Structures are given as structure tokens and as C-alpha cells.
């Protein structure tokens, strides 16, 4: 056949070369941005990288960043898949509030005094409470999924409904009060340590591992990308597009629910009005910083995690540098602009041309 007559330029290790190339393209730039931020911290903040052992676990700024970034990383993981299907989920923050509230209410908002000693009681066994909270998050996901995949509403409007109403629901449960939890085992989730590292980090790693396993060992990743890039062609190739889209919204809500548990556990209370406020924006920002495109298609789970770390490192840096609060936003904006530009090939080309022009 004609293949014989066509000199196909087959590189010897084509299969090897490509993942590396992909890695370069998608991960190198966010990693570089993160490294740069850390470098600034190294130079400007004394003791930033200092780690000490306190009460059997690591303690230091880096640990804080990881701990704080954990909920955002979870939310970003879920958001990554939604964005890969060319969708968007703005209800993440509301789901965080709902899950946190349900857990806090069920675990225990009661401090009883017995003989002058405070005694902590959980209302119902904690495992059930956590399951119920995740169940609530799951229901939120099902709702979003039905609206987007079933009814065909535009994702932003479909999830906007839950974004508005969800927080209201959470407040309805708590009557607008902050529900404080007085049950120490619950705190482990958000501020406990395992093998010297924050438990939250292990949880994120577990979710990440599970997700990437799902992507690698099943065809989910391929299908999600196909649906995100060209839904018509994907349907004609026999992919259940609606079911897939439904799934990613459920998955995203579950991730958000877990993040909500983490946040509630970390501050030992559920604050329905403020928990996860604007988390969706940060999650989307994390995905885009990590190289994901809002037009759907190619995604990188690790990229999104790095994106989340960039955001949290930036926030932390602002706090540590003693930037006056009224300047926070400007600094954040400038850094986001710079990170974006550093990721733009066009910008690099321009820079090179200018350099060459000068030389």
C-alpha cells in the first residue's frame, strides 16, 4: 500500500517522547510559576522554609500552605473534570456550605457541663454524619447533573441556581448561626496529622490517586476529553455523552462536599454564610493556572493541584509579607497576570523578538 511509498518520519521512541512533551507543555509552566513564588518567599520571608517537629508532626509555613490549599485542591480536582467537558460549576461554594453544615449539625453542636467539666457528645455516630454530609453533596451533584445533562440548561445558569439556593438551604438548617462542633474526633479530618503530615494532604492525595487511576484504568479520561472537544462527534462514536456529563457534575459536587467537611473540621464549626465563599472562582482559577482550558478538552489533574498550590502560596505570601490589606487584591491581580503571561507562548515569542532586537 501507499505507506510503503510514503517516507513517514517515525521517531524511534515516539511513544516515550510524547508524554514527556505533554508534560513539558502542560506542567512545566505552572510548576515554574510555583517555583518562582517560592523563590520570592525564600528571599523575602525569613524562615519560610523552616520546618520543625511539633507534637509529633511537621510544623511550618509550607505545612500551613498545604493544609489550607487542601480544600481548594479537592474543589479544583472536581472542577477539572467539569471544565474538561466544556462545563462550569459555580455551585461549589454552596455545596461546601451544605456539606459542612450537615456534618456539623449531625456530629454535635452540644457542650454539656457535668460537674463543672465540659463533656463532648456527638449527636449521631460520626461516620453516619460524614456519610450524610457526602450524601447531601451527592444530591447537589445529581441536581446539577440533571439540569445540565438531562434538561440541557447552560451549565453556568444550572449551577447558579444551586449557588444561590444552596447557601440559603445551609443557612436554613442552622438558622443563620455558626454551628460549633465540640467533638474532637471530627477535627482530625481538617487539622489532624498522619505520619507527620496533615491528614488533609493524604485525603487529597487519595482522591487524586483514585481519580487518576479512574482516568488511566478506565476510558473515562478519553471520553471526557472527547465530549469536551467535540460533543457531536463523541455521540456519533457511541459515547453516552449525557451520562458522562451527569457524572462529572456529581463527581465535582462530591469533591466539593469533601472540601466542605475539611473546612468545617478545620475551623471546628460550620459557617453556612461564609464557608467556601467564592471557592468556585478560586477552583476555576486553579484549573486554568494548571493549564486547563475553559473550552473543554485536554486537562491535567496534577496541573490543577499545582494551580491550587500557586493560589494558596500567593495568599500566604501576601499575609506573611505584611502587605496592607487594601493592596492585597492589586498584588494578587498582578501576580495572576504575570503567571498567565509566563504561560503564553506568544508572550515568550515577543520577549525573544525584543531581546534579539536589542542585541
Amino acid at each position, binding site marked *: 500500500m501507499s505507506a510503503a511509498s510514503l517516507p513517514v518520519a517515525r521517531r524511534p521512541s515516539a511513544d516515550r517522547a510524547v508524554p514527556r512533551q505533554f508534560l513539558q507543555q502542560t506542567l512545566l509552566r505552572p510548576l515554574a510559576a510555583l517555583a518562582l513564588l517560592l523563590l520570592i518567599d525564600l528571599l523575602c*520571608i*525569613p*524562615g*519560610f522554609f*523552616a520546618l520543625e517537629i*511539633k*507534637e509529633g508532626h511537621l*510544623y*511550618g*509555613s509550607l505545612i*500551613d500552605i498545604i493544609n*489550607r490549599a487542601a480544600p481548594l485542591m479537592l474543589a479544583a480536582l472536581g472542577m477539572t473534570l467539569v471544565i474538561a467537558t466544556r462545563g462550569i460549576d459555580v455551585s461549589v461554594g454552596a455545596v461546601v456550605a451544605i456539606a459542612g453544615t450537615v456534618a456539623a449539625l449531625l456530629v454535635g453542636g452540644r*457542650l454539656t457541663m457535668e460537674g463543672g467539666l*465540659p463533656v463532648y457528645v456527638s449527636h449521631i455516630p460520626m461516620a453516619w454524619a460524614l456519610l450524610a454530609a457526602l450524601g447531601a453533596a451527592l444530591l447537589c451533584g445529581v441536581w446539577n447533573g440533571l439540569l445540565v445533562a438531562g434538561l440541557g440548561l447552560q451549565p453556568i445558569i444550572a449551577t447558579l441556581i444551586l449557588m444561590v439556593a444552596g447557601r440559603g438551604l445551609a*443557612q436554613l438548617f442552622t*438558622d*443563620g*448561626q*455558626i454551628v*460549633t462542633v465540640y467533638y474532637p474526633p471530627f477535627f482530625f479530618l481538617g*487539622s489532624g496529622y498522619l505520619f507527620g503530615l496533615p491528614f488533609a494532604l493524604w485525603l487529597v492525595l487519595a482522591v487524586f490517586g483514585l481519580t487518576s487511576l479512574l482516568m488511566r484504568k478506565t476510558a473515562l479520561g478519553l471520553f471526557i476529553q472527547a465530549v469536551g472537544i467535540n460533543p457531536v462527534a463523541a455521540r456519533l462514536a457511541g459515547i453516552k455523552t449525557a451520562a458522562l456529563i451527569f457524572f462529572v457534575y456529581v463527581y465535582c459536587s462530591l469533591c466539593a462536599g469533601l472540601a466542605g467537611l475539611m*473546612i468545617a473540621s*478545620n*475551623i*471546628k*464549626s460550620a*459557617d453556612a*454564610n*461564609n*464557608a467556601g*465563599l467564592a471557592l468556585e472562582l478560586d477552583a476555576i482559577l486553579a484549573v486554568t493556572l494548571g493549564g486547563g482550558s475553559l473550552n473543554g478538552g485536554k486537562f491535567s489533574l496534577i496541573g490543577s493541584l499545582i494551580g491550587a498550590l500557586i493560589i494558596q502560596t500567593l*495568599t*500566604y505570601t501576601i*499575609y*506573611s509579607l*505584611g502587605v*496592607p*490589606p*487594601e493592596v*492585597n487584591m492589586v498584588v494578587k491581580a498582578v501576580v495572576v497576570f504575570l503567571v498567565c503571561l509566563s504561560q503564553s507562548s506568544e508572550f515568550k515569542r515577543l520577549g525573544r523578538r525584543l531581546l534579539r532586537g536589542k542585541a
Partner: protein
Amino acid sequence: APAAPLVMGFSQVGAESEWRSANTASIKAAAKQDGVTLKFADAQQKQENQVKAIRSFIAQKVDVIAFSPVVESGWDTVLREAKAAKIPVILTDRAVNVSDPSLFVSFIGSDFVEEGRKAGRWLLERAAKNPGADLNIVELQGTVGSAPALDRKKGFEEVIAGNPKLKISRSQSGDFTRAKGKEVMEAFLKAKDKKIDVLYAHNDDMAIGAIQAIEEAGLKPGKDILIISIDGVKGAFEAMLAGKLNVTVECNPLLGPQLMQLAREVVAGKTVAKRITTLEGVFPAEVAAKELPNRRY
């Protein structure tokens, strides 16, 4: 006796904090008890929503309008419309800045600057016990640009300016929330340049979050670091009981009964005081145990 019940339109800021929820609950309960028909509108923290709500109260021809302004400025136009419709306006909780003071009849509520001053005075007294030492203060501000944040900062700074040993070394916004309060405090604690002696938080929630951060850093809140906060919510009293918070300055949300009485007087045509300050105390840890059972929010 009036045949028709008094109709009051009330525009609330939102439900952004426990304090606010308690405030709302108090007003609703008082209205019910007083037989006042309450038209309640929640502004979700947006001034434009409040203006819309006030316009709709005017369209509904309520007897009196009350509201807690999101921000001081920008009320002239809509209040003029209310005046033209001959509906008296009462402000609660926060003041407004209008060119014509006759646009509202009265203002009941706390004085944020005064709260800041009270916090500052407590610290001054405390510092006086140990005159030699410099005290390094960190501040957790409320939402940047919001009235309580601005005023509580102002009042506090005004008072501590009197003692050169007191210095605010770091000040960052914690958005009035526990999570942010904790996050910012964590970062403060890691900065090794100076030992932190005092924490001044613009509300109890941020203080409670910060307390957790301090504990996780292996320090004793209330002892290693003095903690001053404002609002006086139940959580703060619990923290004081546990010895983790030193003092909270009360900012009383239970304005309902006072408001209803005022409304009746206004509608009845009586002259009322232009400024009614709510009764507010300062609760150091020592009185916490006695006070906790009285806390309804």
C-alpha cells in the same frame, strides 16, 4: 387604639454573621410581640438591593421604614423619595451620611468607633499593670472598607496612641470569618521576627479562628497572647470560660424591642431623640461564667 396594625418595612444587610442573625431574630420577635406587621427584606450585603427594597416599601405605603445600611453613603435620593411619600425612616445599627439630617428621624445602634475605643482602653489598663514591657499587637481587620472594620480600627488606634509601648506590628483582613481569621493568624505566627503579645480582632469569629491557630502553634491563647475581640457572641463567652479569650466588647444586636417602641412613638407623631445608643458592656474573662447563661445568641 389604632384599628390597623402598624406596618414596618425593614431592610436588613444580610445574614453574613451570627451577630446579624441574632439582630434579625430580635427584630422579628419584637415585631411579633408588639403586633407590628413586619415587611422584611434581606439585601444580601448589597446596597443596591436595600435601595430597591426601600423603593418597594414606599410603593407599598408602609407606615415606617427601618433599615441597617450596608454602607454610610449614598442614601440621599431614596430617602428623599421616602420623605416625599411622608414615611418616617429609622436607622438601626449603622449610621448614614446624608446632606439633610431630616431625612431620617432617629438612629439606634452601637457606636463602632466607641467599641474600638473600649477595646483599646481595656488594653491600656492591662498594659498599665506591667508598664515596662513593650507590647506587640497584631490586628485582624474585618472586611476591607466595611464600616465596622474602619471604625473599630480607628477607635482602637486612637486610644492606644496614648501609650508608646503599644504598637500594631501587623494588620491584615480576615473578612470577619473564622476560616480567614485562622488562616491569617497562622501566617502571623510563622513570621519569627517578633513575638506576638496581643491580638486584636474586629469580631469574635475571627478571634475564635485565631485561637485555634494559636493552639495549633503550641501556644496558649489568652496567656501567651492576650486576645481582645468585639461583639460578645456566645462562642466568645465559651472561649473566655476556657480561658482562651481575654475580653470581648459587646455590640448588642438585640435592638428589636427598642426599635418597635421607637417606631410606635414616631408614627404617633412624638418627637424622639436623634441618636439612641444601645446599652453595651465590656466583658472580661472574669465575668464570663456569670454572663454566659444570659447570652441568647
